[in-house]
């Protein structure tokens, strides 16, 4: 018992506060950076909330591999510019991204992993730029708006500088976290999440399970993102769905396939009706995460994903 004049402030927010929190940290045209990788550990529930806020003209960053969630943001018309190395559902193209670029509706820069990671490293390290030396011969380098040739102060190796990337808003998903914003990834891979948290100006995180601070204190090395870097944390069960949140649940491949099928059909037909209906059903319509989970088939659809994740 400490005779403190007041208690320690919690960073925990409720589901209804997500939208207002995103609006507090973001604005039209701001930069947003998404954690996870491809079909794993993506903050998809937060992305759905971001779409619901109506924030638009977003400048989109991500760890070097992105797919479903950025395609959803683009389908919803929220994105002006992308700084995304690979945009793919891995086994197929991202239909909305592809269509928007082909129609000239968004600017999709030629960027690679070293650009994004180097820029985030510079920001995390508190320096104005990160040197990059491993580029030669690629059109990605020559078109990259974030790569600037510099002279090396040591030797004459061709060298570039990537400026610090300090996203206005970083969205992350972790398996566990406490009310003070300490995040704990239980997955084997943790991507660039910790780097983004250190680089970002504002960080909002969803966790599958809120845990007591005591659980964090029992394993400090298990904390992947310290609470000092996190502005708000919210418990969202299955918050990464349809991407995986290992070891809690695996990716929902068929859910992603169904989205890709209809978005691709819309792209080919030059029609927005398919995507509009999808957004209404899964993004704008559901009042909360539980509504969303019901809309996709309820626990009957989720239990197999949990089982698959137990058999890695």
């Amino acid at each position, binding site marked *: 018992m400490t005779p403190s004049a007041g208690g320690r402030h919690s960073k925990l927010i409720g589901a209804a506060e997500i939208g207002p929190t995103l609006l507090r940290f973001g604005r039209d045209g701001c930069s947003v950076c998404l954690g996870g990788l491809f079909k794993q550990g993506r903050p998809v529930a937060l992305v759905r909330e971001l779409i619901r806020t109506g924030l638009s003209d977003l400048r989109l960053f991500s760890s070097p591999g992105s797919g479903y969630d950025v395609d959803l943001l683009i389908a919803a018309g929220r994105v002006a510019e992308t700084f995304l190395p690979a945009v*793919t559902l*891995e086994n197929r193209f991202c239909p909305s991204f592809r269509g928007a670029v082909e129609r000239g509706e968004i600017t999709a820069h030629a960027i690679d992993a*070293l650009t994004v*990671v180097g820029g985030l*490293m510079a920001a995390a390290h508190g320096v104005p730029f990160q040197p990059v030396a491993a*580029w030669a*011969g*690629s059109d990605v380098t020559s078109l990259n708006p974030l790569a600037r040739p510099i002279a090396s102060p040591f030797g004459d190796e061709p060298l570039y500088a990537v400026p610090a990337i300090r996203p206005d808003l970083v969205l992350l998903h972790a398996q566990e976290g406490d009310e003070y914003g300490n995040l704990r990834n239980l997955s084997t891979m943790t991507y660039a999440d*910790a780097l983004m948290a250190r680089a970002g100006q504002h960080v909002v995180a969803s966790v599958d399970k809120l845990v007591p601070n005591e659980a964090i204190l029992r394993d400090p090395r298990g904390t992947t993102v310290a609470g000092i870097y996190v502005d708000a944390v919210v418990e969202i069960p299955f918050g990464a769905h349809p991407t995986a949140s290992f070891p809690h649940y695996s990716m929902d491949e068929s859910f992603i396939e169904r989205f890709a099928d209809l978005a691709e059909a819309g792209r080919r037909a030059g029609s927005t009706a398919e995507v509009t209906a999808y957004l209404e059903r899964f993004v704008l319509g559901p009042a909360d995460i539980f509504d969303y989970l019901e809309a996709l088939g309820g626990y009957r659809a989720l239990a197999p994903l949990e089982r698959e994740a137990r058999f*890695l």
Partner: protein
Amino acid sequence: MSERYSTGELLAVLLARDLRDGETGAAGAAALIPMAAIMLARAMHAPNIQIAGEMFVNPRPRQLWDSMLDDRALGTCEASETFTELFGHSHRGLDFFFHSGLQIDAHGNINLHAIGPWDRPTLRGPGAANISYGVRSRRFYITATSHTRRNFVERVDFVTVPGNLDGPDSRARAGLVREGPRYCLTPRCVFDFDPETLRMRLRSLHPGHTLEEVVAETGFRFAADPEPATTVPPSDDELRVLRTVVDPRGALAPGRTARH
């Protein structure tokens, strides 16, 4: 062609044979065939291959998946890394890496970005996360799961990963000092590169395929022996290890990967 093995199994076996014991390498995302090749090489002749460079070290997959870059595909591994460590690996390079492409050209350049003009492409592809392993690694392999005039072109519209650019001089000018692409493996044949021009040339035809067919389906001219060698097909032993140790679920098996 044979029903004894699928195209995926064939390519995995061919790649595995070229990986040496003690080397370090990685496969990227959507890397079913390359990861199968690495695991097969480890099981057959190269127990000291180190798998590193993609945020995990020496994975132990229980089975193969279409993507080999997530916890489900890893099984487990000896160490977990992040994009920060990957940044370092990208600069130092690996011994071997693998690339595929929307377009692949006569000099082994790879396009994963856009077909048509950059600003308004007729097809915008996924791009690539890592363009440096091809540049910095000792060598890389190109794998293609289809082989037509549409994807095998004289010159790519966009160089995502440089192969030999426009030949030896342009490679040197761009600062490319490693071996670059060693082989290009397709469902029809194996190409290697003429040391003088650094253009693809036919190395061997897979069993059941003909030179006329490959000429007809390739969008660039390539050198070829009038009576090309035939690719040595997977041995019974290679197939047995592949199917029992590496790919027990049959992700590569006939009917699961395209056959030609």
